Structures are given as C-alpha cells and as structure tokens.
C-alpha cells in the first residue's frame, strides 16, 4: 500500500461513523492480504507512511472469505467475483487474515 493511499484511508477512517466501518479486501494472495491487514490493524510495518504507529483497528474481511460470500446475493457474487474464486488462494488468504486478527 503506497503512502498516498495510507493517508487517504487514514482520513476516511477518521470520519464519522467509524463504529460502522469495515474494510473489504480484494487482494490476490496470502502475502498481500497479510501486509494490508497488518498495516490497517497495527499500523504501517515499514514506519514510512501516515499509518506508522497508527492502528486503525477496523474490522477487515476479504471478499473470498466464506462468511462474506454468504452475505452477498449469489448472482451478484457470481458476476463480480466469479471464476477468480477458483484461481486465487482462498485458503491462504483466509489463513492470513485469521493470523492477523489473532495478533500473530
């Protein structure tokens, strides 16, 4: 996540309605998922961007997680996500998010 993006997300997250905010990811693999999830929950691990030392603490989900997929009408999910579900590493992505949520 680049520094400009970090700044934008920080400003948005500091807006009203924070208690209703969640982050929905569409990252393609385990490592990119873990990196963004870490940045948004614990702060920028490189200590270079606006989120350095700023744990936003927003709930983070990935569109491929089962609990998210179940919340979305199946026709919409099939149209928007469709075959990518079979191509991307769903297990790895889910495991990465579970690990970040557990603070590991």
């Amino acid at each position, binding site marked *: 996540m680049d520094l400009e993006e970090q700044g934008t997300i920080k400003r*948005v997250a500091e807006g009203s309605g924070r208690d209703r*905010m*969640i982050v929905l990811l569409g990252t*393609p693999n385990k490592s990119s998922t873990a990196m963004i999830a870490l940045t948004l929950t614990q702060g920028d691990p490189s200590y270079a961007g606006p989120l350095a030392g700023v744990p936003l603490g927003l709930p983070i989900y990935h569109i491929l997680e089962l609990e998210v997929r179940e919340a979305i009408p199946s026709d919409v*999910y099939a149209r928007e996500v469709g075959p*990518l579900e079979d191509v991307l590493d769903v297990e790895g992505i889910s495991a990465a998010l579970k690990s970040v949520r557990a603070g590991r």
Partner: protein
Amino acid sequence: MIDLRDKLVLALGERDGIPGPALEACAESAGAKVIYTTTQCFA
C-alpha cells in the same frame, strides 16, 4: 455470515485480484454503503 447492512465499507481492490468496483457492487448488494473504493496496482 457477517452482516453488511448499514456498514460503511472501504473497498480495497487489487488489479491482480478482485478490483475495487467489483467489491463495491458486492457490498452494496448486501446493503452496505461504500465510502471509499480503490484498485491498487503493484505491477
């Protein structure tokens, strides 16, 4: 299953994964309001 109704969603897509507009369409169809959408590109 998470409840997306009335949630304020930051949709962070990626070009090599699921793009932001697709996340936005999914979230809105489940009753959420998307307040920020992006599609990152690391290539």
